């Protein structure tokens, strides 16, 4: 009985193997030709997180801003060389003698992606809309003193400010919105924020066409873009929650670009075939910010920190290069001033860097000479009241590098006889338990910011205590300097004066700027060419300051599409194995039935 089944089973198995092999190769062909992206030139960008929202009123993270940069125009673009304003929708803006009225010339012949004309009216509408509807105040600071806007003709915008201002040339970082779409939400912030804005009508080089939440979003080229049609047809942003997966996707050619990598994975990509790496200059800095007290009677700040010599000794006692090497694995620069290397227009090199260079011997001498020569049994210096100088420094586990930096600093300050008690906590805990009450001596945190330094300069003024100030630093001279810079309407004069302010902060050391961590990216060098770093000198290839995609040209590999996937031979093997399993199960069932019979 049993023997009879064998030839039949074998025949069936062989027939099925043949069938699977044929059908799988047929499938492979059909899926290759039916893909609508086969003849489109698509740039696939891996990102470590999703957009929060493509609605400008909810824009928060870098992905949102990148999408807005592609979908909309600003009044001015950013000059990639120094991030200064360059012609955008406005070809120029001229101030009146008192700097209260600015007259901007708006480009003509620009259309929205739905074909409607874009005029100066749309710009005036957008700015009024921000004034009435942007309740989260994402953009309002770019339009100071509640200006009014008028439009004498389609190519002229008049910006009237009650006080002299240079706001139009900062330039205002406000995406220009189509009036015919957004008018219905004017004054109704809640409804405006609820507007999905997908697909989005814009005037930028790409149009947001779809958003698959949590997975990615797609932008198609705006072939009518006033600055010239992009050479690529589509950008797909693909979200990878795990950076490891994003890196593997880049290696296998599933994405052409990987954004915002951590140093370990970034270094694993350096020198890999067909992969280029980008160390973009910093857009944030990490700092050791001191507490000067003033929060109230509960403040526990160590008064010794008010002595500039102590702060200078601490600065000299910290080896910033060792933090770069150990915490950032080399992917950061040594810090100095409160502006950023990626803002070359404002970034400034202090005149006396040597005065704060790492030198524990000099720091010890300075402390000895400043009245802190006495030490306790464990080698910690005593302050003028005979108390050991033990600093309570807070680190934040959520902030990349903060905890490790704190540990290094604690060990280094030990060398100059300053004790450190480290405490690690979340930003919420700091805010509730320490920052409001002033219960800390210093923390290791950081700042980012606008291209314009107005904001970062403002955090050191006295009135920012319990506002944006780190530790209630207060210096009347600096307060006067800050007030003065807001009145400087001549750009060159303001740049020079702001350099003076940066030097002042550097010398007074309300905080120590530790490092400028690099912005790390990687890309397939075999798929596209024409990358445009922003800023030009050492900037990132994407996620910079706009207009980085138009120059991209596909190489041969990008035109032929992706080659990854399971080879046909493997499909056949899988098919054979599957059939063998099925045949085995069928045979043993048959055998069992016979036994039971």
């Amino acid at each position, binding site marked *: 009985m049993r023997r009879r089944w064998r030839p039949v089973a074998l025949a069936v198995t062989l027939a099925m193997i043949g069938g699977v092999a044929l059908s799988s190769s047929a*499938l492979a062909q*059909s*899926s290759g030709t*039916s*893909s*609508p*992206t086969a003849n489109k030139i698509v740039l696939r960008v891996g990102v470590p997180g999703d957009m*929060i*929202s493509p609605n400008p009123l*909810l*824009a*928060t*993270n870098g992905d949102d801003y990148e999408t807005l940069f592609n979908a909309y125009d600003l009044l001015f673009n950013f000059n990639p060389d120094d991030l200064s304003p360059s012609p955008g929708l406005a070809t120029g803006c001229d101030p009146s003698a008192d700097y209260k009225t600015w007259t901007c010339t708006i480009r003509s012949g620009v259309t929205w992606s739905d074909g409607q004309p874009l005029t100066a009216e749309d710009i005036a509408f957008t700015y009024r809309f921000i004034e009435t509807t942007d*309740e*989260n*105040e*994402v*953009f*309002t*600071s770019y339009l100071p003193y509640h200006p009014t806007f008028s439009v004498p003709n389609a190519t002229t915008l008049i910006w009237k400010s009650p006080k002299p201002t240079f706001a139009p040339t900062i330039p205002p970082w406000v995406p220009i919105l189509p009036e015919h779409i957004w008018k219905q939400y004017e004054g109704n912030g809640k409804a405006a*924020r*609820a507007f999905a804005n997908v697909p989005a009508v814009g005037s930028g080089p790409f149009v947001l066409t779809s958003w*698959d*939440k*949590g*997975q*990615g979003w*797609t932008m198609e080229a705006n072939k009518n873009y006033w600055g010239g049609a992009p050479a690529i047809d589509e950008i*797909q942003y*693909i*979200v*990878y*929650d*795990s950076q*490891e*997966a*994003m*890196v*593997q*996707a880049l*290696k*296998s*050619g*599933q994405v052409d670009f990987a954004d915002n990598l951590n140093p370990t994975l970034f270094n694993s990509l350096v020198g890999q075939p067909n992969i280029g790496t980008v160390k973009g200059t910093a857009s944030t800095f990490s700092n050791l910010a001191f507490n000067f007290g003033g929060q109230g009677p509960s403040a526990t700040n160590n008064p010794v920190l008010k002595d500039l010599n102590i702060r200078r000794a601490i600065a000299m006692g910290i080896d910033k290069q060792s933090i770069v090497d150990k915490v950032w694995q080399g992917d950061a620069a040594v810090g100095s001033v409160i502006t950023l290397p990626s803002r070359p227009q404002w970034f400034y090199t202090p005149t006396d860097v040597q005065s704060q260079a790492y030198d524990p011997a000099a720091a010890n001498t300075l402390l000895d000479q400043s009245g802190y020569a006495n030490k306790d049994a464990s080698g910690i210096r005593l302050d003028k009241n005979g108390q050991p100088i033990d600093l309570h420094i807070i680190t934040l586990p959520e902030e990349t590098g903060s905890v490790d930096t704190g540990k290094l600093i604690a060990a280094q300050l030990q060398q100059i006889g300053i004790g450190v008690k480290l405490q690690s906590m*979340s*930003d*919420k*805990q700091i*805010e*509730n338990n320490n920052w409001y009450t002033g219960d800390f001596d210093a923390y290791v945190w950081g700042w980012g910011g606008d291209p314009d330094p107005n*904001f970062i300069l403002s955090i050191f003024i006295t009135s920012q205590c319990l506002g*944006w100030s780190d530790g209630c630093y207060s210096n009347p001279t600096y307060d006067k300097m800050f007030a003065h810079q807001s009145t400087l309407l001549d750009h060159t004069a303001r740049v020079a004066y702001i350099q003076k302010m940066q030097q002042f902060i550097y010398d007074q050391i309300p905080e120590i700027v530790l490092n400028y961590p690099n912005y790390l990216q990687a890309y397939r060098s075999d798929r596209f060419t024409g990358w445009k770093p922003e800023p030009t000198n050492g900037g990132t290839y994407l996620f910079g300051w706009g207009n980085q995609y138009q120059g991209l040209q596909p190489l041969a590999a990008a035109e032929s599409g992706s*080659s*990854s*996937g*399971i*080879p046909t031979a493997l499909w056949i093997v899988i098919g054979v194995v599957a059939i063998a399993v099925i045949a085995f199960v069928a045979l043993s069932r048959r055998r*069992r039935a016979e*036994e*039971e019979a």
Partner: protein
Amino acid sequence: MGRKYLARKTLHALATLAFVLAFNFFLFRVMPGDPIRLLARGAATHMTPQRIAQIEHEQGLDRPLPQQFVVYAENTLTGRFGISFVTNESVTNVVARAIWPTVLLVGSATLIATFFGLWAGIKGAWGRGSVFDTSSLFGSLVLYSAPEGWLGMILLIIFVGTLHWFPAGQMSSNTGQTGLANVLDVLSHLFLPCMTLVLGYIGEYTIIMRSSLLEVMGEDFVMTARAKGVPDRLVRRSHAVPNALLPTLTLVFYSFGFILGGSVIVEAVYSWPGLGLLTYRAIQDLDYNVIQAVFLLFSLAVIAFNLAADIMYGYLDPRVREA
């Protein structure tokens, strides 16, 4: 089955649910992080204290905790979970979108792992000490103790980075294909996360099935069956395995309860858009409303399947009903 048994089990389930509801609320109120800052993100740099107070009021965060709890209980019982702090979308929508991918991934992985796990467990126990048994036991122990996130990374490095066979993440390629091409596309995206989960689950099933069957094999009725000349295969199939299946079945039912919970780690490694990834992101973003909703959903699923297992068990095993 006794009505009393059923009533008691249902009551237990409801009591657990009530506890979970209360616990859920207070757990998330003691977690670190300020939702207003999170809601505002970068925008907070420009936000006035008035606007912050307004948002707190809108979200009900300015009220005393007991009052917040009453509002929470009322909303939860009527199925209103509020809006996500992060995306401003209704939490119900956010959660609903994530259910199907998780059911597909964890459901298929559980089925495959159950099938092969039970098979290996039975075969191993029956041929105790054989090469198959020792190697499958060794493999099971290794896989059972391997962290899923690590397994996922290893598969990524082999199948994506080196062999270039499978996609590194997501559920589809976003190329707009339809029909069979789309099914194949989803399957190719499903393969690696599903395989990771199967490898992670299979050891547990194998080990439990094996030890349960070994226990039964020593029982008198198995010896009796053999003594009366029943073929070995039949002893296994009709006498030993059905009795050994009881504890394994409970395990399978319990793990079905965890299907909705998915695998936070595997979904995060492969960016699989299910409930696990949703949970991972919501915890990172401290999106209270979403976390509350998914935790409630997970608890509900576990409680429901436990209840189902209890009822099922009572049905299959008469001894339990009387207990």
